[in-house]
C-alpha cells in the first residue's frame, strides 16, 4: 500500500517532468507544438527503449487515465462565458459538429476496417 503510493507520486512527477521537457524541446525547435503532445512522444520513446522502467509509472498512468473525464469539468463550466454566442449560433454549431463527426467517424472506420481486413487476408 505504502509502496503503491510512493510509486504514484514518482510516476506523477515523471509525467509532469516529461511534459515540461517536451515543451522545452518544442520551444528549442521553434515549433508551436503543445508540450503535452511532445511529452507523450518522448514518453513513448522512453518506454519503448526501456529507458524508463514500467513499474515506476504504471500506477500514475492508470490513475490519470481513469480520472481523465473529471479534468474536463472546469472547461465545460467555462461554456457559460460563451453562452450567448453559442445560443445565438446553436444550430450551425451543433449541426456542424454532429454531421461532421458522424461522417468522419463512419468513413474512417470503414476505410480502416477495409485495410485491416485485407492485411489479415494477405497474411493468412
Amino acid at each position, binding site marked *: 500500500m505504502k509502496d503503491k503510493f510512493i510509486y504514484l507520486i514518482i510516476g506523477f512527477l515523471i509525467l509532469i517532468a516529461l511534459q515540461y521537457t517536451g515543451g522545452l524541446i518544442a520551444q528549442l525547435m521553434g515549433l508551436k507544438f503543445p508540450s503535452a503532445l511532445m511529452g*507523450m512522444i518522448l514518453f513513448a520513446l522512453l518506454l519503448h527503449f526501456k529507458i524508463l522502467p514500467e513499474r515506476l509509472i504504471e500506477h500514475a498512468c492508470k490513475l490519470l487515465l481513469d480520472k481523465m473525464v*473529471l*479534468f474536463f469539468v472546469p472547461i465545460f463550466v467555462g461554456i457559460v462565458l460563451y453562452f450567448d454566442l453559442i445560443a445565438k449560433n446553436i444550430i450551425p454549431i451543433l449541426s456542424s459538429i454532429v454531421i461532421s*463527426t458522424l461522417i468522419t467517424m463512419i468513413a474512417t472506420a470503414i476505410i480502416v476496417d477495409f485495410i485491416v481486413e485485407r492485411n489479415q487476408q494477405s497474411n493468412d
Partner: protein
Amino acid sequence: MIEFVQKITDIPLFWLVATVVIYRISQSIGAFRYIKKVPPIIIASGLLIFILDKLSISYEDYNSDACYITYLLGPATVALAYPFFKNFKMVAKNKKAILVGTLSATVIGLISVYLVAQWLNANNDITLSLLSKSITTPIAIEVSKNIGGIPALTACIVAITGLIGGLSGHRVLRALKIKHNISIGLAIGATSHVLGTSRCIEKKQEQQAAVGGLTIALVGLLTAVLAPILVKFIL
C-alpha cells in the same frame, strides 16, 4: 447568510474541492434509473453552473481555484503513451491502416465541418473556431489562435464534440458492424479526441485506447499543418 457563503467560498481552493466532490456525486447519481444514461460530466457541469449562478460567483473566481484540475490534462495526455506502449505490437502490425486512417480522418473532418458550417451560414469567427473541433484541447487552442478563430470558443466546441463522439461512437460503430479494435479506436480517437478515448478506457478496451492515443497525436499534428492551408485556400 450571504456573508457566510462568501466566507466559505473564499477558502483557498474551495472550488477545486467542490468540483471533485460534485463530480463524485454526479457519478453516484447515475445509479438512479432515469438519469443513468446522462454522463456524469454533464450533470456535474450543469450543477456547478447552476450553483455559480445562484451564488453570483464569476467564472474567473471559480476557475482561479479549479484551473489546477485542468492542468492535470497535461500529464494525462502524456500518460496516453502508456496504453500505446502496452499494445505496441498490434500498432506496429497495422501501421499502414493507422497512417491512411488518420490522414483521411483529418481531411474528411476538416472539409465536412467547413462545408456544413458554410451551408448553415455560420459566420467566419464560428467557422474558424469549428475547424479544430476534433483535436485535443491544447492543440485545438493553438490552431484556433493561428487561423483566427476564438480560442475559448474552440475549447467549448472541442468539449461538445468529444462528448457527442464519445457518447455515440461505440453505438454507431457497432450498428455498422465494424469489427476491429483498430478501426473503432481510430475512428473514435480521430473524431472525439481524449474524451472519446476515455470512453474506450471506461469500457476496458485497451487496444482501442492504444490506437486512440496514437491517433489523437497524429490527427492533432496533421490538423495543425492542414487547417492553416485550408484557411488560406478558402478565404
